[in-house]
């Protein structure tokens, strides 16, 4: 039975278990007239959980290891023809075995030895599949019987079900931790290798970024400089510009939509603005590079300012436009959630709308708004394509938005998708940049958390 069918069967079994559990509990309730905090459907869920979860876990585990186990059995005693096969060709032999067993084509004559192995593989797979089926279904049925026995008026099914849900919730919450661990681990080793080549102090405090190192051994080249300060400064500058665009526009839009506009207007404009978040960043990149950048340069020419067409300003403004909906839509939701009674309180004192919004509604909605802004900042810091196309790679250390700067993400992408070499400082620098950026934003977030804690106004 293929995996998908097995999954469907399990779901069906869980469903019927649910109905049976519910029926039985209903019946028991009708007879016994008992009262616990568990409803019949809790009993149903209890049963369904017993049926589905252990079986699903076992099935998943089985699936995970079956392939390896069978492969190693097949390879364990190879026919003499393959006895002296070199270890790194084993992989290929397996590919051939799989191909032949699955009825696919192989780019060479299929000899007897191979055919034998393939048959063996095929047989073992069949056995494995059958065993899996029996085990999983057996487990499901066993669990069903076991749990059905336990269903009684006394059983605190709701508590059990809720406990299981709680476990799910906790497991879900730890995924973010696992993700973080994964990110750190996937960056750490390369970063350490990078710091073997480039001193960490130079990286953190160096003011010059110029990874013009030679890539080929016959190519000497200049040694390159890996001072990351200009990159972080550039990131900061562009993020700042983006936030100067996105926060006022986004926040004011949200305020207008919730407090001034008609529901119809709000219902149309909000989704429209959300489109801005989904326009592919490549498109923004072109827009920034070819329209906005040139526009600013011409504007500069007209008023006698020297604005380069790769200015931080152009990239920042366009990025700001992109993240407007992060601020506007999320703020809109939290502003909308402020209870009407607070508005009434303020209006009743003769406050104008603007005053009510500024002094009562926004403070009450502050934690949510800060969350929205933090999300927008995060998005700006992590954004790549726009900056790659509009701001470029020039690592200038400047606070002047009219000049070209580059960002950490641009360099990461440049280093990773450009011509790379597995152990040159140039390629490894990408990992170090990512890790340091990770730590820097971590610091920012800790500060934001403390800010919110301090100014939180809990209503109701």
């Amino acid at each position, binding site marked *: 039975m293929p995996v998908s069918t097995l999954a469907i069967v399990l779901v069906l079994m869980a469903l019927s278990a649910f109905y049976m559990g519910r029926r039985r509990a209903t019946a028991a309730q009708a007879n016994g007239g008992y009262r616990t905090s568990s409803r019949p459907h809790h009993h149903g869920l209890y049963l369904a959980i017993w049926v589905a979860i252990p079986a699903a876990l076992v099935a998943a585990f089985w699936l995970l290891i079956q392939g390896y186990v069978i492969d190693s059995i097949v390879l364990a005693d190879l026919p003499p023809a393959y006895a002296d096969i070199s270890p790194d060709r084993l992989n290929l032999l397996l590919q051939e075995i799989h191909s032949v067993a699955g009825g696919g084509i192989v780019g060479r004559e299929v000899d007897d030895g191979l055919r034998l192995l393939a048959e063996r593989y095929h047989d073992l797979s069949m056995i494995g599949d059958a065993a899996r089926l029996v085990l999983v279904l057996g487990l499901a049925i066993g669990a069903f019987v076991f749990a059905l026995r336990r269903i009684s008026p006394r059983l605190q099914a709701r508590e059990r079900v809720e406990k299981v849900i709680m476990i799910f919730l906790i497991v879900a919450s730890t995924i973010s931790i696992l993700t973080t661990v994964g990110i750190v681990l996937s960056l750490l080793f390369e970063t350490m290798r990078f710091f073997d080549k480039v001193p960490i102090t130079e990286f953190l405090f160096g003011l010059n970024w110029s990874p013009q190192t030679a890539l080929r051994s016959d190519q000497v080249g200049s040694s390159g400089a890996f001072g990351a300060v200009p990159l972080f400064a550039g990131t900061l500058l562009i993020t700042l510009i983006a936030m100067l665009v996105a926060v006022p526009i986004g926040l004011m839009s949200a305020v207008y939509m919730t407090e001034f506009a008609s529901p119809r207007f709000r219902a149309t404009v909000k989704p429209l603005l959300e489109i801005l978040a989904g326009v592919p960043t490549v498109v923004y990149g072109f827009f920034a590079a070819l329209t906005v950048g040139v526009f600013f340069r011409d504007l500069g020419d007209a008023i006698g300012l020297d604005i380069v067409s790769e200015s931080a300003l152009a990239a920042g403004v366009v990025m700001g436009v992109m993240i407007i909906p992060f601020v506007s839509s999320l703020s809109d939701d939290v502003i909308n959630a402020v209870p009407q009674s607070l508005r*009434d309180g303020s209006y009743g*004192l*003769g406050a104008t709308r603007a005053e009510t919004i500024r002094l009562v509604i926004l403070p009450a909605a502050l934690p949510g708004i800060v969350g929205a802004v933090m999300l927008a900042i995060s998005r700006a810091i992590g954004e790549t394509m726009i900056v790659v196309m509009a701001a470029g790679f020039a690592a200038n250390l400047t606070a002047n938005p009219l000049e070209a700067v580059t960002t950490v993400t641009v360099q990461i992408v440049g280093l990773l998708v450009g011509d790379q070499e597995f152990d040159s400082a140039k390629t490894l620098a990408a990992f170090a940049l990512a890790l340091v950026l990770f730590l820097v934003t971590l610091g920012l977030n800790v500060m934001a958390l403390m800010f919110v804690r301090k100014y939180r106004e809990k209503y109701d």
Partner: protein
Amino acid sequence: MSQALADRTARTGVPDDDIAVSGRDISVFYGEKQALFDVDIDIPRQQVTSLIGPSGCGKSTFLRCINRMNDTIPGCRVTGELFLDGEDINSPRIDVVQLRARVGMVFQKPNPFPKSIYDNVAYGPRIHGLVKNRGEADEIVERSLEKAGLLKEVKDRLQEPGTGLSGGQQQRLCIARALAVGPEVLLMDEPCSALDPIATARIEELIEELKANYTIIIVTHSMQQAARVSQKTAFFHLGQLVEAGLTERIFTSPEDERTQGYITGRFG
């Protein structure tokens, strides 16, 4: 407007400039549902008027007409004319902000801002520019809390959030907040409902005091309270103003039998 005003003296027997608020043909609709039906009422200046009547009869709705709080309820529509000092409050020339500063309101459900107790009270004076510095604000906050009988309980925790107070304390906080602006008319929607007798007495005293300068309209379910504090009483029933007049008269010799039925029902 002039016609309506002209009629007034005739109808009420009260001279014009003793009338602070007067409503003509006021109907209020929540969407389809009509909550008030053609209410005609005159409310005397610098006196206390009670609105009484069974729950859901439209007292709060009427109260909210006077400072146009109904504007803020989506789907709520008010027809008819309402005059404050002879000005039609629904006329476009009227500034609702000023109107609401002139007509203060204490809501039925206490709704303190999620700010400190101090900021709750200082909020009104600040937005209206009635205070210039911290000192003035301190003074006005203290005075208002004192009047609302809350000062003693909260004076050492002025910086704590207003939402952490007990129900009755919250209600007094809202009263203090309304007083701080110094309105001409004060609308009080069951200001004592969450208060114990002592606090109630304090508020009633306050009402007595304020009466000298303010026009007060109070919704109450306690007929004793109405009798104690108000000079005029209006009785609402099912969205209609059944009867209005001097409190004494209403309680002793009501004209309408619905009024009679209500006030001779068991006491609250």
